[in-house]
């Protein structure tokens, strides 16, 4: 983790401003809250805007494949803003997990569809899967026909294509492209990223990679995901901090803004320190994903730190808002649910610490 660039470039700040402006316009809190009870819990119109108006769906994909030819660093900035808005779009599943897997196996056609946003992809693994040794074993391949059930799949509900890790009869890891699976919504703790059960019953798949290549692709996708999820968590935590500081300045009790009470001030100061640390860790994760240098350790660090930090930030937001923060109408709970779910996604902090232990012999 030396030589990391931990700051934002001007291009990144400009990208952030564009994404933030779009989300402020199209995905204000009341709209996002209402969406959680709509028939379709994903905001596909917003998704189209992100793809068509801003072109942020293919940032790490080379230009010749229809992408923006940028890197995971810029993708991470988009994730920060999506986290800050808990925007219900399949960006993480399609533009991070699926894209990372397709980049790894050198696939081009679907990749360009995902990059342009004309198709949504999802990596068909349980969202709680941690990176590291081991290959998902929920699906079995039999002569190119896939069978199995995978629960807690992120962003599969609106996916056009599924990237399905499967085990061949002899246990060889394989990675398939699938379009005709049965996908059912699950009631999910996180209301703005509804998970799904994917059921495959002798469904045809297109083999993308096999053996070590398949294992490496899935592993890299999960590691990239873990490294970048910290940026989304940072966005969630920043919302919590910013909104709570603003509320503390405006809400009066005992004739004073509650933000003038020292115990509240000190907690918000501690929270600011925590969010500052998350930012450094998230930038390290994004930079490592982009360069590939030291990615396993940096990804594990990112999740070991950011998971708990985002939960703390949103828990403090609920608490310091008092009663109003516990109501359905206030968006704080959406962030709390996102933060807590994200802390379980791609492995709990506990698992990531265990991974650090293996990687640096601690």
């Amino acid at each position: 983790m030396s030589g990391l660039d931990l700051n934002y470039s001007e291009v990144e700040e400009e990208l952030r401003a564009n994404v933030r402006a779009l989300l402020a316009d199209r995905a204000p809190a009341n709209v996002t809250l209402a969406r959680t009870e709509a028939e379709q819990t994903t905001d596909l119109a917003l998704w189209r805007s992100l793809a068509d108006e801003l072109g942020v769906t293919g940032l790490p994909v080379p230009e010749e494949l229809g992408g923006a030819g940028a890197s995971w660093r810029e993708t991470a900035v988009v994730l920060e803003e999506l986290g800050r808005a808990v925007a219900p779009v399949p960006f993480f599943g399609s533009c991070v997990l699926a894209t990372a897997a397709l980049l790894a196996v050198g696939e081009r056609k679907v990749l360009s569809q995902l990059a342009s946003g004309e198709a949504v992809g999802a990596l068909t693994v349980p969202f709680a899967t941690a990176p590291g040794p081991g290959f998902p074993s929920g699906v079995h391949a039999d002569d190119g026909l896939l069978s199995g059930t995978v629960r807690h799949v992120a962003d599969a509900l609106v996916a056009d294509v599924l990237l399905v890790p499967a085990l061949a009869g002899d246990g060889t890891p394989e990675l398939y492209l699938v379009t005709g699976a049965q996908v059912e919504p699950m009631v999910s703790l996180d209301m703005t990223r509804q998970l799904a059960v994917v059921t495959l019953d002798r469904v045809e798949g297109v083999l993308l990679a096999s053996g070590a290549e398949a294992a490496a692709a899935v592993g890299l996708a999960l590691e990239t995901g873990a490294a970048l999820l910290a940026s989304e968590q940072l966005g969630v935590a920043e919302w919590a901090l910013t909104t709570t500081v603003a509320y503390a300045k405006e809400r009066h009790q005992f004739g004073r803004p509650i933000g003038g009470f020292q115990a509240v001030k000190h907690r918000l100061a501690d929270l600011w320190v925590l969010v500052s640390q998350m930012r450094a860790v998230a930038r390290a994760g994004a930079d490592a994903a982009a360069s590939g240098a030291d990615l396993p350790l940096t990804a594990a660090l990112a999740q070991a730190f950011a998971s708990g930090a985002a939960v703390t930030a949103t828990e403090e937001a609920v608490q310091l808002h008092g009663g109003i923060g516990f109501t359905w109408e206030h968006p704080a709970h959406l962030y709390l649910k996102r933060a807590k779910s994200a802390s379980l996604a791609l492995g709990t902090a506990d698992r990531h610490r265990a991974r650090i232990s293996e990687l640096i012999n601690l």
Partner: protein
Amino acid sequence: MDAELTRAIGDLLAAHDPATTPVADFLGARFDAGLAWVHFPEGLGGRSAPRATQQEVNDAFAAAGAPTLDSGRHGIGLGMAAPTLLAHGSEEVRRRFLRPLWTGEEVWCQLFSEPGAGSDLAALGTRAVQEEETGDWIVDGQKVWTSLAHEADWAILVTRTDPDVPKHRGMTYFVCDMHAPGVEVRPLRQATGEAEFNEVFLSGVRIPDAHRLGAVGDGWRVAQTTLMNERVAIGGHAEPREGGMIGVLARTWRERPDLHTPALQDAVLRLWVDAEAARLTSERLRQQLAAGQPGPEGSAAKLAFARLNQQISGLELELLGAEGLEYEDYSFRRPANPSMIGGSPGYRYLRAKGNSIEGGTSEILRGIIAERVLGLPQEIRVDKDVAWKDLPR
């Protein structure tokens, strides 16, 4: 327990078989025999006996299989309204309300918090204006976080009667008829998806002056009686080892060896230790208070319980991993019998967030401990000598 009490209980049980007597009748008889709250005066459910004997009386009835009221539905009446009615009600008010409260025939709720007056209850703005001709009070305003408002017959209500004096001095306390015209109850949905509480809108609600508790302008003092009893009610009951939230976590741990990792085990053990320490502390307080009055120490139990519930339910989700990503049901509903322990792990996690807010935030409780137990200086008050109407909001 003295012989007279023992005899009275025996007589009552002999005359009213707990197994066959309807609940309200049995409780009515218990009230009339002065065995409801033994330290209350005669004729008001008591017999001016020492408060310390109440537990023994309760135990004797429990041993005989006598019925009691559901504490969820009647907790506010029994725990908060009753002591306040006794302490501050007129003789007429006490006679009118205590008996049906005790028998469960009338359900009570509490109209205290407002959107602008949460921790700072004394900032409340629900206006009560006295009509010159009738002496009745006309009440307008909005209350929030009202459990049971949709089922309650009566409410204890604090209002602003004089906006021109500093806030603590211009409040008045009433009993409010929840069936009166102008009382509108709307469910208040919370982060769990359900609506355990309500918002109550009061528009021109008429309350007879006879239903006032305490003097005009003395509502703050009356409310203190209620609040002190609330804090004790929340933290004061005995719990067996591995009762409450820690029991749920311990059970999950024992039943799910597939989820075990050494680090999670230590986390579970840490919380077990903390929960057991908190339980023993409540038990010690209970032993001390058996004979005494509630004090600020109850605040500590509530503080510890809120933190533990949050930590334990948070760890449960971490332990469950993938399963922790699920939820039971976010659809809107009004739970008949809300429980913080029941429901799914996700529900427990979300619901526990309310524990450090409802019934006094943890921040307020720390202040109470610092000032009333440790004698540290009070917060500097900028609102002390300012008329309520001139306070910044």
